[in-house]
């Protein structure tokens, strides 16, 4: 499914563009979460094989001929853990933003100029 790979790369690019150009801190985190979704789409779409089913054995899919009938299980497993970590990292970044807002009272990135050169 090349089209889904392209879709994932487009989402990564849009998210990165948003992170670089938007000023509001919440928008930057939204851009990060868009990048996250895009990367997951790319990884899962690389493991897909045309015309095959999910790697779950049941009455229709016996373990004997599984090697010719299932998609790659490893990208699914990796993305499974990556999504949960994505939520945790997003929550951590939001708490940072809350803390920054508590100290300075502003949510615009241009107001934080201590590290500006």
């Amino acid at each position, binding site marked *: *499914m090349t*089209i*889904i790979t392209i*879709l994932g790369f*487009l*989402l990564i690019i*849009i*998210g990165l*563009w*948003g992170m670089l150009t*938007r000023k*509001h801190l*919440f*928008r930057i*985190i*939204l*851009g990060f*979460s*868009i990048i996250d*979704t895009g990367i*997951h*789409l790319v990884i*899962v*779409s690389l*493991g*897909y094989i045309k015309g*095959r*089913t*999910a790697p*779950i054995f049941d009455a229709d899919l016996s373990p004997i001929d599984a090697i010719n009938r299932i*998609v790659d299980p490893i*990208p*699914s497993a990796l*993305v*499974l853990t990556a*999504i*949960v970590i*994505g*939520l945790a990292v*997003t*929550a951590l970044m*939001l*708490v940072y*933003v*809350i803390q920054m*807002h*508590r100290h300075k*009272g502003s*949510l615009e990135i241009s107001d934080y100029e201590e590290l500006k050169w």
Partner: protein
Amino acid sequence: MILTIIIVLGILMLAAAFMALYLKDLLSAIIASGAISLMASVIYIILAAPDVAMTEAAIGSGLTTIVFLYALHLVRKKQEDKHD
């Protein structure tokens, strides 16, 4: 047929991504970013990865939105207190 579904979903996802970055109202932007995850979970079903689809639907569109909304609530509340 499946290709049509993917193309429609893809266009909707890209539109929702731009909405999440450029809508004026922050609440609508957060909800648009939840919608991206929801449509991505449909795509995972098409890609034969039901585990990932469940996780994305529950975490990406459910809990992430809730966390964002809680954070927005905290920040807005502080601002209102400042203005008083």
